[in-house]
């Protein structure tokens, strides 16, 4: 299986319709021989193609429960967004008990490390000048590496909550026990699965694997029915940072502590527009922090979730309200001694992907650019995608890079056929000299 991204194609289901090709924010898909192939280097795991495919040909293969349970000590990390998948009446304790019943030795809430990360983020923003972009959504990090490399320096140099927690658990086990846990993440999206194998800013991930919510949702539900819990334990016992699961959650925590200029934007196409404005200096430098997520509504909008994002948002909001009531505190603690156990800073530089240049030699790149501009002039500019590329400009680039032929465009092909037909007919009427003299003779006779 490819390690660069986690979105896959079920060849037998693909009709070659180009819906995904046109909707791909990085133009990573081409239809060839009636199948929509993903160009590995360009896929950022945003899952837009999974959302747009009517035939459900695009999918992602996360780890299964069976794989996780082969471990001697499987551990599951639960993201805040997961709590939007159930009615707030089912307590977090009950949910975690049900998950443990499936065979996990321990379950942890990522909201714990998210809370710690929020505290560290605020410290960082107060101690550093400039504006920063959250690194928690791996799709956004990859988008910036691919299409906005000059904004890499704006990425907050701190690990994501999942990685922070997994690293801390590994350290604890090393210190206290003589065995290693296998740490799985209950993921709402394919992007987090990719980070298990290929992560930015760290040498390697601290996760063992990732299980899609859809993979074990039903099993959790079945398990819920079987368990019994004493009423005094049947409560949420969750960090207020559970609000991270939806768009603006991180922002709201930072702002609850201190008045700080932040902006939260969700949805990959909106984020792209924002990054464009940031790039041309058209966004106020007053904004210190950008909370950006690829999925609309934040992680609750993740494509591997089961519940629709709107209901999930409501569920999560009510649950957060309940947590506030239970804790009788509207604010998340601004200090915590446990925070010293986390190693917040990324250990590696985030490096640009650099795959958009036409040639590594400048002169050759210039020649290709000229050729590209010529091709764009010639092509019809209808962006019909019938050639398999999302638009004429991208198709032109494919031609220049030797990945497509001009006649893959049906309009160009028709034009050429038309010309061919004209030439044929002219040729047909042009008789050889021997024949023409005979014809003339015949005419004279009659």
């Amino acid at each position, binding site marked *: 299986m490819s390690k660069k991204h986690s979105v896959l194609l079920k060849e037998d289901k693909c009709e070659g319709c180009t819906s995904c090709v046109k909707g791909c924010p990085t133009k990573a898909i081409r239809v060839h021989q009636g199948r929509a192939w993903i160009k590995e280097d360009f896929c950022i795991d945003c899952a837009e193609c999974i959302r747009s495919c009517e035939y459900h040909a695009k999918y992602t293969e996360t780890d299964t429960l069976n794989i996780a349970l082969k471990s001697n000590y499987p551990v599951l990390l639960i993201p805040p967004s997961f709590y939007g998948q159930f009615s707030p009446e089912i307590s977090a304790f009950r949910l975690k008990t049900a998950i443990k019943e499936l065979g996990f030795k321990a379950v942890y809430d990522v909201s714990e490390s998210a809370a710690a990360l929020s505290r560290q983020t605020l410290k960082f923003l107060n101690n550093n000048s400039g504006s920063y972009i959250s690194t928690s959504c791996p799709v956004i990090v990859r988008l910036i590496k691919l299409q906005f*490399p*000059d*904004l*890499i320096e704006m990425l907050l140099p701190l690990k994501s909550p999942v990685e922070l927690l997994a690293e801390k658990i590994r350290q604890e086990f090393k210190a206290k026990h003589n065995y290693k846990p296998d740490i799985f993440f209950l993921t709402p999206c394919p992007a987090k699965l990719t980070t298990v194998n290929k992560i930015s800013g760290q040498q390697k991930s601290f996760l063992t694997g990732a299980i899609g919510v859809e993979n074990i949702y039903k099993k959790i539900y079945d398990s819920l029915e079987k368990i019994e819990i004493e009423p005094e334990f049947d409560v949420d016992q969750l960090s207020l940072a559970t609000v991270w699961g939806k768009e603006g959650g991180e922002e709201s925590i930072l702002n609850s502590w201190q008045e700080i200029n932040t902006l939260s934007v969700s949805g990959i196409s909106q984020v792209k527009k924002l990054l*464009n404005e940031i*790039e*041309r*200096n*058209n966004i106020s430098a007053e904004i210190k922090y950008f909370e950006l997520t690829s999925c609309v509504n934040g992680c609750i909008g993740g494509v591997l979730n089961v519940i629709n994002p709107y209901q999930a948002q409501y569920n999560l909001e009510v649950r957060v309200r309940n947590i506030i009531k239970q804790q009788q505190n509207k604010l998340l603690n601004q200090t915590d001694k446990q925070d010293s156990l986390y190693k917040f800073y990324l250990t590696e530089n985030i490096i*640009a992907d*650099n795959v*958009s*240049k*036409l*040639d*590594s030699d*400048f*002169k050759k*790149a*210039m020649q*290709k*650019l*000229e050729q*590209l501009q010529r091709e764009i002039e010639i092509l019809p500019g209808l962006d019909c995608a019938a050639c398999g590329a999302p638009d004429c400009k991208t198709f032109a*680039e494919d031609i220049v890079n030797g990945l497509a032929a001009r006649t893959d465009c049906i309009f160009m092909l028709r034009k050429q056929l038309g010309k061919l037909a004209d030439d044929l007919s002219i040729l047909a009427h042009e008789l050889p000299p021997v024949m023409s003299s005979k014809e003339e003779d015949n005419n004279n006779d009659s």
Partner: protein
Amino acid sequence: MQKQQIMCKEIESFDFQSGGEASSNLKNILRKLGVNSDLVRKTSIVTYELEMNVVIHSLGGEITALISEEELEIRVDDVGPGIEDLDKAFTPGYSTASNEIREMGFGAGMGLVNVKRYADKLTIESSKENGTHVKVLIKLF
């Protein structure tokens, strides 16, 4: 190496819809040529500022980009009232933009200041009769 033209785009007065397209186009072209991302950013900021100046202050104009292995040249030529006081135009915060424009988020008086900051060489010729002609050079190596 002689400079070759890589972009030429007309800009219409008060066309806020397409304002910014020239800077986006140029950014994409430079990426395709493998130009270093810091320089792409600089160019993007410079081009956008100049482009929006044409949209906001002139009666229309044209933006041209030329490149060689060593240098990028951006030329912006407009038809319009010209810049009345060039010295003042380079004062941070100085702007002649109307309230209407300011409400749109422009006219902070940082445009030419930023252009000067990122350009390696900047020349401006401006008069009431002949409009404004800006030439920016950005060294690529």
